[in-house]
């Protein structure tokens, strides 16, 4: 399978730019949950980068662990928080 040289360059450039944009978004977005989603998306673009650099093993590992499991763990952490917040609000509401 031969990929056209220019096509390859364009793809690497696109992946690089998307990685940097998503990296900045992940750090600068206001809501924590969207940060986590940006991180996950960034991880997916990293997977693309690994594929482009001919590293299929790394790509699979990153796809499963980096963008799958780590995102899941982040989200579980945040779920616990929102639940706790709601309870607190309810308590505050009860005392009123």
């Amino acid at each position, binding site marked *: 399978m031969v990929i056209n040289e220019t096509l390859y360059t364009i793809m690497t450039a696109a992946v*690089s730019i998307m990685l940097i944009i998503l990296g*900045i978004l*992940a*750090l600068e977005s206001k809501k*924590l949950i969207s940060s986590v989603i940006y*991180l996950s998306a960034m991880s997916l673009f990293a997977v693309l980068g690994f594929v482009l650099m001919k590293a299929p093993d790394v790509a699979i590992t990153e796809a499963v662990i980096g963008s799958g499991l780590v995102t899941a763990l982040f989200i579980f952490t945040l779920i616990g928080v929102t639940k706790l917040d709601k309870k607190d609000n309810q308590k505050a509401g009860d005392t009123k």
Partner: protein
Amino acid sequence: MIQIAGLILILIGLYGLITKRNIIKMIIALNVLEIGLNLFIVSVGYVQDGIAPILTEVNNSSGLIFVDPLPQALVLTAIVIGMGTTALSLAFARKIYATHQTFDLNEMGVEE
């Protein structure tokens, strides 16, 4: 190209670690840094027109030009180690939230 992007991501992660005062954001910055680092390491082993370092029916001889497999093996290790530390620090984050009711270091009253 991706090598430079990896370096920039490392710098973005560093910037995040310096400025962010939110525990979750700090962990995210660390993850950004680690992804950048992994991209950089793999790119070090990339060879122009090299093929993936797996012998198959198509690429069946080791006489072909492969990309360097050693950095890929290192990254495999680094990804798993990164996941381990992320899981541990998220557990700490939950514990801290349970005592302080916030993720924000400013709200906890921690000095810079």
